[in-house]
């Protein structure tokens, strides 16, 4: 297999047109000492049928969230993806396109991105959105560097309740840019606001909180925003877009930049990617915004159209002074989000968030009532909560599997003082029956 359409005759005629005797002549500029003297050591090629069987066999070595009942979240969520999303993102006019550099022949994707931007602005209550970033973690890192450029400061204060992998990613980016990352600790499952107040100063470029935070708790975002602004820093809110059907959006509590992981908006979990990093911000910050953005314009006849714009911020024009090095983003995931959010509409958005809220609270009440189990905190939460248990969470996870339940995330690896705690996520997909069977299985462990 090689998907090359040429016949041998095509090839020889083409070589003749070029004026060379054989293919090797076309490679004569590669010095012999760097030419590969042997065939690559790779497995033998496969027919399509054999390949499909092989891929199926590999896939079947995994246990999926289709055949297990999942209470695992922690940044990747088992939300329902309606059929329309998969069907529409599978339109090959979309998925086999490149970045829409030639606007007139790429109006479909450009309009979809423009719609996505509008939807994200609505959802987060912010002024402008970019066309997407890689994922939630890099969106946090990009927001931090954006804040540093904007304020010309080199320190970021982030809550320890932000997703551990987002913090690690931020630190990796920051270290190479000479940005100092300072962490504010937690108190009762949420950011310690007093410590946050002590750490933020006139040297701080931005304060970053996640809402709901990694443990599921709802944070006092307005108070944190006030801490940031009092010090002349920006406030970056990392949010779960599904929660925004019910929870206050970043624009309502004074965030300057909103970022987050948009996987829940129509993308499958796919073992961690591709996901959807989103970034929205206040109008005043657009010159420092990273990533692509689509804008509305018109043609000579006055017809409305869309085009990639404000490109002078980007790497292909500004090169080493660009606002980010990002080029390819996650356009197809953004399209999925646009379709998903349009499918939900105004009422559906509220309803899906409410279902998560209701079911998670039912689960919380039931789990907390099991002898030996107690919640990590009494802070209000949305769809995820942490609970301490009388057995090791890893061991509990193994036991739950026997009931075909994929348990929550053991937290000890990320927070040593939560070694006996598990983070349980409940989406709209979980039924009362499934939650009850989780509780029965947990009761058996107590």
């Amino acid at each position: 297999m090689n998907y090359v359409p040429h016949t041998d005759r095509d090839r020889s005629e083409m070589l003749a047109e070029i004026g060379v005797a054989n293919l090797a002549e076309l490679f004569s500029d590669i010095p012999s000492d760097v030419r590969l003297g042997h065939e690559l050591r790779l497995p033998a090629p496969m027919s399509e049928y054999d390949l499909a069987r092989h891929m199926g066999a590999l896939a079947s070595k995994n246990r999926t969230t289709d055949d297990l009942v999942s209470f695992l979240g922690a940044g990747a969520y088992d939300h329902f993806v309606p059929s329309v999303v998969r069907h529409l993102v599978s339109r090959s006019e979309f998925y086999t396109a490149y970045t829409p550099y030639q606007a007139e022949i790429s109006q479909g994707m450009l309009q979809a991105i423009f719609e996505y931007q509008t939807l994200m602005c609505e959802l987060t209550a912010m002024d402008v959105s970019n066309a997407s970033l890689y994922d939630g973690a890099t969106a946090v890192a990009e927001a931090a560097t954006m804040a540093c450029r904007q304020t010309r400061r080199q320190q970021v204060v982030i809550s320890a309740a932000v997703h551990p992998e987002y913090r690690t990613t931020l630190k990796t980016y920051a270290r190479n840019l000479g940005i100092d990352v300072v962490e504010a600790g937690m108190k009762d499952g949420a950011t310690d606001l007093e410590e946050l107040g002590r750490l933020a100063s006139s040297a701080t470029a931005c304060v970053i909180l996640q809402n709901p935070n990694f443990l599921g708790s709802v944070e006092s975002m307005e108070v944190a925003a006030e801490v940031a602004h009092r010090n002349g820093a920006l406030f970056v809110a990392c949010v779960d877009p599904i929660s925004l059907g019910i929870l206050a959006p970043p624009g309502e509590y004074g965030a300057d930049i909103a970022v987050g992981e948009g996987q829940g908006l129509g993308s499958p979990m796919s073992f961690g990617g591709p996901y959807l990093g989103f970034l929205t911000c206040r109008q005043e910050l657009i010159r420092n915004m990273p990533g692509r953005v689509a804008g509305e314009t018109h043609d000579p006849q006055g017809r409305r159209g869309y085009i990639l714009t404000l490109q002078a911020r980007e790497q292909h024009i500004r090169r080493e002074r660009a606002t980010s090095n990002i080029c390819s983003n996650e356009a197809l995931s953004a399209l999925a989000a646009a379709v998903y959010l349009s499918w939900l509409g105004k009422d559906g958005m509220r309803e899906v968030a409410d279902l998560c809220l209701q079911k998670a609270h039912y689960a919380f009440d039931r789990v907390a009532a099991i002898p030996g189990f107690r919640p990590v905190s009494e802070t209000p939460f949305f769809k995820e909560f942490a609970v301490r248990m009388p057995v090791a969470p890893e061991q509990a996870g193994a036991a739950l599997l026997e009931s075909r339940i994929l348990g929550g995330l053991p937290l000890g690896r990320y927070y040593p003082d939560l070694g006996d705690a598990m983070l349980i996520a409940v989406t709209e997909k979980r039924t009362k029956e499934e939650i009850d069977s989780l509780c029965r299985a947990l009761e058996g462990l107590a």
Partner: protein
Amino acid sequence: MYPGDLKYSEKHEWVRVEGKIATVGITSFAQEQLGAIVGVGLPEEGSKVEKHGALADLDSMKTADQVFSPVSGKIVKVNRALEERPELINDDPYGEGWVAVIEMADPGELADLMNASEYEAFVAEEASKG
């Protein structure tokens, strides 16, 4: 083409001098080279700038350029109108398209700049180099 009452730098900025006050912009040659200017990033009023230091960002469709300050001093005023209407630089580079007003720290630096006819010759030479 190049007003006689202005001074010019090799980076294609012009300076209008009134006592210790210098108004800075880019020349008609520079704006033509850039093409349609679509965005301007201005410095903060009250901040200091060094001679040859970056004064403002100029975005055109194909490039992102910078205005370099021909003199050092304190930026006393910036042309906020450019944020809404960057095309003023294309349309009226020596008038409404001015970029910033600087209170000069050392008016002696002006001696390094060209007058209109010197600048015209300089541009002709640049153009011939392609």
